[in-house]
């Protein structure tokens, strides 16, 4: 009697296991934070009745997956995550061009992102680069509060600044590209060298430095400002700084995957995700980026993009594979090998 029971249990279990994800009406790859992804999934289901299967992975992981799945795509639409991998996916022809009727409601930077990639991607939010510090530690050490990029190279912050490794993190690559655009190539690398003397660790993940600052494991972390604000809102003693020299920014993007099995639904999601209704969901999950729809609501905690000195970031040049490889290998040989 025992054996058939076990066999049935295994059979029932595997039945539910091997139904493929292709049964959903829309397969969404999501590269924003978990809660944001979930609320997007649920709200879209409620708004349209289309069944969504969502997978959350970082933008790098999703890009690796798109490459691996290129000959037989499993996903339909890829929403969120920094713009570079989206641009790269467009460059490698992994994504599908689409011109949404929602375009006239968007900020110019969101549309610029689309035109630079042959309409294969579009901006959904943007966030400026900056840094944050742990105010408790700062007070304890009796140090002045940093306000500019240049302050971070001062000797009193030696061993107290943390940033991600540009080889592994899109955030840190944006930092490198920003410095090159802000101070010129020579000046930018000179800055990175002086900063290197103060760095205590190059982390692997882009938002790790500000989490370390929140926990008191470093004084200053160089990250996107909305990540620093999220730390403060979560209750950590973190103060966000918009650097006085001006700064670069990222454009979180969305793309439709080439060869999507549910193209109709993918386009529906795409249009919906650009609407005011969908973009207002960001505030419910403490995402403090600036949304791409002109009519989307803003939080008073979010850094005010209008008050920032933003550089004219050249996504096309600095997002291309060749320029990226060149800058990274230069950073590797000229900066990372220096003694600290």
């Amino acid at each position, binding site marked *: 009697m025992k054996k058939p029971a076990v066999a049935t249990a*295994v059979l029932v279990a*595997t039945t539910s296991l091997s139904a493929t994800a292709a049964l959903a009406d829309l397969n969404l790859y999501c590269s924003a934070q978990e809660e944001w992804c979930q609320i997007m999934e649920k709200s879209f289901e409620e708004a349209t009745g289309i069944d969504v299967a969502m*997978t959350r992975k970082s933008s790098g992981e999703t890009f690796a997956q798109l490459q691996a799945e290129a000959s037989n795509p*499993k996903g339909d639409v890829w929403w969120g995550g920094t713009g570079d991998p989206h641009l790269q996916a467009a460059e490698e022809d992994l994504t599908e061009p689409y011109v949404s009727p929602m375009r006239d409601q968007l900020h110019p930077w969101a549309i610029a992102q689309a035109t630079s990639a042959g309409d294969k991607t579009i901006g959904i939010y943007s966030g400026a680069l900056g840094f944050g510090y742990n105010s408790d530690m700062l007070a304890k050490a009796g140090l002045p509060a940093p306000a500019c990029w240049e302050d971070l190279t001062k000797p009193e912050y030696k061993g107290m600044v943390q940033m991600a490794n540009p080889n*592994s993190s899109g955030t840190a690559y944006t930092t490198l590209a920003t410095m090159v655009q802000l101070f010129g190539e020579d000046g930018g690398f000179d800055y990175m060298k002086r900063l290197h003397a103060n760095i205590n660790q190059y982390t*692997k993940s882009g938002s790790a430095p500000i989490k370390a600052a929140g926990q008191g494991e470093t004084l200053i972390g160089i990250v996107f400002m909305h990540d620093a604000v999220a730390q403060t809102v979560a209750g950590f003693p973190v103060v966000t700084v918009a650097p006085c020299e001006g700064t670069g920014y990222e454009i979180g993007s969305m793309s439709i995957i080439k060869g999507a099995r549910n193209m109709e639904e993918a386009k529906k999601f795409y249009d919906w995700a650009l609407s005011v209704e969908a973009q207002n969901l960001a505030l419910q999950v403490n995402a403090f980026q600036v949304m791409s729809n002109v009519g989307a609501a803003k939080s008073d905690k979010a850094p005010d993009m209008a008050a920032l000195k933003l550089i004219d970031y050249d996504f096309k040049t600095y997002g291309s594979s060749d320029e990226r490889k060149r800058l990274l290998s230069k950073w590797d040989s000229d900066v990372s090998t220096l003694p600290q």
Partner: protein
Amino acid sequence: MLIFWIVAGWVGYCLLPWYGVEKFWSLEWLLDGWPLDKDYAPAAVLVAMGQKLWLLPMALSLIAPLAVMGRRKSDPVFARVLIVAGAFGFGWLVAQGLGIGLRGFTAPWLEALFGPLEDRQFGMGYGAMITATAFLFLLTTGIAARGAVNGDVFVMSAIGGVIAVVTIFVFFPIAKMLMAAFVTDDGGYSLLVFFAKFFDARIWGLGCLSGGRCGVAWNSLFLAVLVGVLTTLLGLAFALVLTRSGFRYKRVLRALTVLPIITPPFVIGLAIILLLGLSGTVTTTVAEILGISPTRWVYGLPGVLIAQLLAFTPIAFLVLIGVVEGVSPSMEEAAQTLRASRWQTFRTVSLPLMRPGLANAFLLGFIESMADFGNPLVLGGNFDVLSTEIFFAIVGAQYDQSRAAILAVVLLGFTLGAFYLQRFWLGKKSYTTITGKGDAGVHPAMPRGLAIPVYAVVALWSTFTVVVYGMILYGSVVQLWGVDDTLTFKHYLTAFRVEWGEAGLRWTGSAWDSFWTTILIATLAAPLTAALGLITAYLLTRQNFAGKRAFEFGTMLSFAIPGTVIGVAYILAFNVPPIEITGTGLILVISFIFRNMPVGVRAGIASMSQLDKSLDESSLTLGANSWHTFRAVILPLLRPAILAALVYSFVRAMTAISAVIFLVSARYDMATSYIIGRVENNDYGLAIAYSTALIFVMLAAVGLLQLMVGRTRIGRRTSHAEGH
């Protein structure tokens, strides 16, 4: 048996849908146009309709065996026909599956040879699967009939089966991934590029000898050797205290040693930061006492080493406890009767007999450390190791698959080196101590000179473990770990809320989905892993066949490669026909089976090399066949190994992350990938609460497994008092 498999082959070819159906177990296809609908048609029907004509030649291999069914096994024609039919059928099936894919021929040279193909095919389904198995069985029966492994059909089929699955699920994906190591920037293949990238200073640099930084290869090697040696010593210390001392709270100690193995990744790392980090409790206290300013000392080698020792000592312990228990007390008693002191006995009798356990424990610690990815990520600081470099070469801003593949080659080289070193050290000596003869001795207590340091180490380590876990438990019930210490249960509520609604019980907590998926997948994977591991171990220790070394190496391979590489390799290999299983729960189960099987193999080998062959021989002499011997004699004596394999694979399925992160899909999200999402999102409280809940679930599961498997009764006295 032969008739059964011939019939199965025909059923697979003529009745079942040849290609994969959308839902593997549902029988929808029966009502939905089968057998004539193109998607559900069996191979024979397709061929009869003039489609997919490349499936036709396999019919020959199904017809041929019918002709020899009546013949005797010893007839050479019988063997020859089966071998030819099985090999041809299997080979053809594989070749057509690889050669013809979604877009016709898969390789340019095939197209050049046969001209373009207008047709295409999808992933294989039940028909193909069953027919393939039948061909394999025909082949192995044929080989056994020719006299290989004493004509033993069970052993031969087991060897054939294990080779087939290991080839499909280990060699094939890894080969696909490693091909990437030779790819140049413009998509061609080149040896020169490989060597240029391989001898990169960032991999092999020796800068640390002169004050700079060393290459990742040296970092990993140094760390792994250190972890291998230290985990083995710690594991041995725990095993000795449990088996050879009068220590009273053995149960507690045993639970404590298993605790780290059932802890989801990142949690230990976070706890160590809160204790030993720059603002950590211990660091700040010590700094205050000594009057110095606190430092980030823990980031780098020290932190990773501590975390890995915590995490991997239990594995060494699980391997060693079986071996240390198994060492024959009679031999130790004999030595003492001959007037050897306790210390001499330990050094010259007990310790040498534990060598297989020590070697296997070291090997596992070494490999685990090499492949570990969570701890270096959290605590590594600027101390880079191969596994994290591989991960970020794939997913980081570089997107450099070929660099990842090259680093994987380096890593593989190290693990293989360790593997051969271990074989060399063990040599050809015999470690058999459990024989069919009565053995009613009692293990002597440890010599005093050894007992004192062993007790000290165990006490120290236990205290540390308790403190770390106290921190974790505490972290799950405070508002914000390290900042706001108000007690709260809100994290547990968010994760595991259950409500009574109109429709009955509703699982409204955010963690339930991933929780049930994880339990289901772990429950399916564990017994399969243990079975495959122990059968392999049996073949390796008890049977002799050509290519045994290569076979053993193959079964260890998937363990030696970090999960990240396996994850990407699986996507590359199994997203396209002939085997199309990405996005299913099946791929998770399969990846766990082949990732964790080596532990079953190692534990099985270590235990089996202690069982005297005369046990098998007497069973065989009394007329049992090898299957019966395995089931009725060997298996019951292997209970510790079975338990180790079951526990390990269940637990790993619940705590592994690196391969999983690539293989989870929307429907099948796993607990660990959910937890990492929370950690990324600063939701430490929820992540830790979920991990804590998982720890308790696993503790319960381990207890349950222990009850189900039972203990080996080796017929020894349990203690001096009860012995008489």
